[in-house]
């Protein structure tokens, strides 16, 4: 027996506690929503024409965003795969990781800088004599932004799939004289077809629950998604009934999407095969060579210009003045404390689940109860996918309002919600690391009789330090950049960095917003990078966590 009975008891009790805490938190939010509907039949809320319009727009923009991201990612992924020796290729792949690690709010600022009314693109168009500006607001802007964030994700997953193809295929194809069209039809497309359903489901899920981008780029009831409509009902119209109806609708929607997603094949690990030399004679053909370079240049401009804009606009802002303001330090301190707390909370909730699941996984005879306990703990870590942050926030907002001052409990709630948001990722990092750690050390520790604190200090901590720090730093980056949970609760007395950026924008202090965005972006990227270096974890932060389970 590798685990002493007392150790097993502790592990399972810890898992049960953590599971209970998560369930209670989510249940209170849901109950509070349900209680608030009293008197109003749910059916009448859902048949409200406004709500139906919002639902239709949510589905429309998510479908179009998914299609566009996929259709545009295919040629880019193909070009990257076909040019294995392209100079700067690795930097393009790294550039593609940036939108995934960057707070959505900041990416949106960059996009506005390039595609907005006074942005680079429209300025060039007006030079060229075209007066019809590209609109960053409304449906076109939302689609543009969703493509900006999801094309790189799709691209990396597709590239990974293409790179898993045996190297001989390309040589055989070349030897047989297959033209690029044939190579696509007989090799590339069959490979892509196998990953596209999973990737599409993942992107659809992200776009259907996208909050910050729609908040910033959506305009009026014509371009509002369920999540933003919930926020507007509570914050502006103060119509809790509608917020509740929308929240329940959102849960139903995510449940359906998650259900469909679970039927699709997993989108696979994005771990790119490094080191293996792949020859692509088909990429050396003149037409392909030129087309791929042109395409990659366009992709780099599309992804890179908004990022470059953030840097340039940020540096143009009066950073000294910003850093000298008391509000900046207050927001920084609030964000810092909240990010650290939510990262620690996320870890404190995740680790017992991981440990309990591991303990159960070692048991030979799994009874039905054990099995459902095991599954429940696995599902708990991803519960936030089913109950989006804004929905949890709404439920707790309504509950807290009945009890007393929302402002007092707001930071605690935001920390808790951010912690839940980070859990899918934290568990995804910790679970395999913990399993490997146990496999490596369990027998030896058991035979030497090392246990308890000594084991933690001498064996577990040194071995698990890296994955733990990775999980913590990603969770912190996620919380630092989050606007969703804060949006409902933000006020003059409760200011985080993203909230400060957002309210600077709202009061037309665009320069301040740019400067703050640069600072926030740099902090988040540094956290993400420091978590990735040497951890052996593919540099896919929060978004990748969704493809788990």
């Amino acid at each position, binding site marked *: 027996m590798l685990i002493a009975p007392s150790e097993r008891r502790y592990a399972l009790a810890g898992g049960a506690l953590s599971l209970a805490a998560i369930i209670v938190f989510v249940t209170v939010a849901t109950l509070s929503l349900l209680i608030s509907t009293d008197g109003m039949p749910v059916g009448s809320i859902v048949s409200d024409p406004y709500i139906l319009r919002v639902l239709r727009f949510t589905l429309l923009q998510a479908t179009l965003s998914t299609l566009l991201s996929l259709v545009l990612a295919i040629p880019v992924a193909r070009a990257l795969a076909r040019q294995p020796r392209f100079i700067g290729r690795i930097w393009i792949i790294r550039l593609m990781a940036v939108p995934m690690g960057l707070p959505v709010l900041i990416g949106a600022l960059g996009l506005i800088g390039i595609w907005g009314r006074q942005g680079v693109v429209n300025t060039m168009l007006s030079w060229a004599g075209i007066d019809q500006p590209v609109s960053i607001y409304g449906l076109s802007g939302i689609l543009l932004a969703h493509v900006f964030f999801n094309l790189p994700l799709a691209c990396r997953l597709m590239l990974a799939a293409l790179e898993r193809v*045996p*190297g*001989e*295929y390309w*040589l*055989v*194809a*070349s*030897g*047989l*004289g*297959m*033209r690029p*069209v*044939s190579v696509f*039809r*007989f*090799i590339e497309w*069959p*490979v892509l077809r196998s990953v596209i359903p999973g990737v599409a489901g993942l992107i659809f899920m992200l776009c259907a629950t996208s909050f910050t981008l729609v908040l910033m780029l959506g305009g009026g009831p014509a371009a509002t998604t369920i999540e933003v409509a919930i926020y507007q009902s509570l914050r502006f119209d103060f119509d809790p009934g509608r917020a509740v109806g929308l929240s329940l609708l959102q849960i139903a929607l995510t449940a359906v999407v998650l259900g469909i997603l679970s039927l699709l094949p997993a989108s696979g690990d994005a771990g790119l095969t490094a080191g293996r030399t792949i*020859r692509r*004679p088909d990429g050396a*053909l003149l037409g392909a060579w030129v087309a791929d370079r042109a395409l990659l240049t366009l992709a780099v401009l599309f992804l890179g210009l908004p990022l470059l804009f953030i840097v340039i606009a940020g540096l143009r802002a009066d950073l000294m003045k910003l850093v000298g303001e008391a509000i900046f330090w207050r927001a920084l301190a609030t964000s810092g404390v909240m990010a650290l707390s939510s990262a620690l909370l996320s870890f404190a909730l995740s680790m017992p689940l991981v440990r309990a699941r591991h303990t159960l996984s070692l048991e030979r005879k799994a009874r039905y109860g054990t099995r459902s306990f095991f599954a429940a703990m696995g599902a708990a870590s991803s519960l936030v996918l089913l109950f989006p942050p804004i929905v949890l926030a709404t439920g707790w907002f309504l509950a807290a309002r009945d009890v007393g001052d929302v402002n007092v409990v707001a930071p605690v709630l935001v920390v808790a919600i951010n912690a839940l948001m980070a859990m899918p990722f934290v568990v995804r990092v910790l679970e395999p690391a913990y399993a490997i750690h146990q496999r490596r050390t369990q027998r030896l520790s058991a035979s030497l009789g090392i246990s308890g604190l000594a084991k933690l200090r001498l064996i577990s901590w040194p071995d698990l330090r890296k994955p733990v720090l990775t999980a913590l730093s990603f969770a912190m980056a996620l919380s630092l950049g989050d606007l969703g949970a804060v949006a409902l609760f933000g006020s003059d007395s409760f200011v985080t960095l993203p909230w400060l950026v957002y309210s600077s924008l709202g009061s037309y202090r665009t320069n301040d917003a740019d400067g703050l965005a640069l600072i926030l972006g740099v902090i988040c990227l540094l956290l993400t990078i420091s978590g990735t270096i040497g951890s052996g974890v593919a540099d896919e932060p929060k978004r990748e966590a969704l493809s788990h389970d």
Partner: protein
Amino acid sequence: MTDAIEMRGVTLRLGQNSFVFDCALPEGAVIGVTGASGAGKSTFLNLLAGFDTADGGQILFDGKDIGHQHPAERPVSLVFQDNNLFAHLNVFTNIGLGIHPALKLGDADRRAITSALAKVGLSGFEKRMPATLSGGERQRVAFARALVRQRPILLLDEPFAALDPSLRRDMAALLLVMHRDSGNTVVIVSHDADEIRRIADDAIFIDQGRVAVAAPIERFSTGENNSALRQFLRIDES
């Protein structure tokens, strides 16, 4: 005897390694190419197949320099150790792609595929998927594809290395039968000196990026007074 292919001062630099190949491959023979791993066997084959383009020198076929031709234009067919077949396409399609790279096939082409499958002992396998075949059967399909391509030279890169020993002999026998039927030139790269001795008429020993020895197999087997080759063949110095 005329030469099928001649390499004249073919040079190539890949990173830290430089290669210089000079040799003549006799027409209609089975030529074994061997050497220690990293010596340059694969580069030799890649140059012949056209996956690497030489920095200098000529690769002559029929008096013409084919050194700058695209792989598909060269008079060669290829069989690798593994992954010769596209796993998601059935046997018929895999062979058909050898006749027309966009799979535009006529009735005569379909008959050619059926007869090629019969020749490699896989009649009726048209609709099978590669995953349902054994390793040996997959290599037979690759041979069938080489048959329908009707190229004068067949290049094989460790074609039997993934198979077990008895199967290896069967496959080598099949290769020789095909060779006798078609009269093609076979260039087979193998790290297995015994295999080369069993099936090759001539052999080439590659050492440090150069053709160190090229000789008929009887003389080759004696080590040709080349210390590296003698070491490779484990011929006792005594």
